[in-house]
């Protein structure tokens, strides 16, 4: 190990977080949010299998909104954002494609959240299962989709920060 020099502690005491650190932390938080969403859905299905006292069970239908949200998130975050705000002109074909694919991604995300509410309403509320342990499975589904959406929003904000940084430099 090389000697540190004049530092007493390993970590510097006062160090303003630079934009790179902030971005890393935000990416970590986004990953954590996505994990929360995923495990909420898993929790709903495991709960329905084990300690569920009612006749309502989680089937594949409950997974469809989450799958839609995940697909939308993957589509949105794999687009190169530089293509969107490109100056129009010769590269307009690529820009048009980027807009179309991004539209599909946002639609998938919206379908995920709407589907979560749809499952909650059609499967639980309409049929009169509005007591708490049973209703929890539907609420967890909605919460999972919200978590995925928040994670996606966070990643979007991060990429826009990057855009500003490169523009200002």
């Amino acid at each position, binding site marked *: 190990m090389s000697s540190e020099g004049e530092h007493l502690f390993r970590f510097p005491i006062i160090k303003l977080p630079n934009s*790179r650190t902030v971005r890393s932390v935000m990416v970590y938080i986004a990953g954590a949010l996505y994990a929360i969403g995923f495990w909420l859905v898993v929790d709903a299905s495991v*709960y329905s299998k*084990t300690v569920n006292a009612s006749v309502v069970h989680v089937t594949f239908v409950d997974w469809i909104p989450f799958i839609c949200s995940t697909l939308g998130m993957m589509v949105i975050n794999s687009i190169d954002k530089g293509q969107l705000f490109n100056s129009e002109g010769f590269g307009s074909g690529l820009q048009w494609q980027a807009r179309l694919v991004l539209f599909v991604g946002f639609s998938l995300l919206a379908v995920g959240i709407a589907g979560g509410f749809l499952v909650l309403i059609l499967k639980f509320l309409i049929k009169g299962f509005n007591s708490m342990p049973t209703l929890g499975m539907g609420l967890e589904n909605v919460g999972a989709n919200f978590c995925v959406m928040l994670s996606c929003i966070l990643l979007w904000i991060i990429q826009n920060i990057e855009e500003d940084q490169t523009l200002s430099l």
Partner: protein
Amino acid sequence: MSRQSSLTKLIFLSVLIAVGFLNIVLSCALFNNWIPILVVIIFLIAPIPNALAQCISTSYDSNFLGDYDDDGSVESPFVEFCHFLTGCLVMSGTLLPLILFHCHLINGRSFALSLSGGFIIYLSIVLFSVGFKEDDSDGYDF
């Protein structure tokens, strides 16, 4: 600094990881219910993406202008995806005992033991990678 300090660090970390494994195995064996052993697997693969990212980012020169290497340098998408995966895995390791507890698959003491054991194992791996890193550029990476 010296071999002595390095040796002390190694012994401390090995004791820490042994305590972590002890906690998790205890949480399984005391109640004869081996589901919480999954927590070990998640916390063991949690540091892998970050290690990969570090490996990549040292060989990858992202600062093409060479001026701003401290702030504002744009990380590669792969490194960012690795960070995302790390956050995902650590949160999964935290949430898995919680879910098992919520679904009455394990009881409360087993939940506490497996959660603390998982965190101790992850902490020891992170401390290992921080303590034996060559350059202390930033201590913020998990």
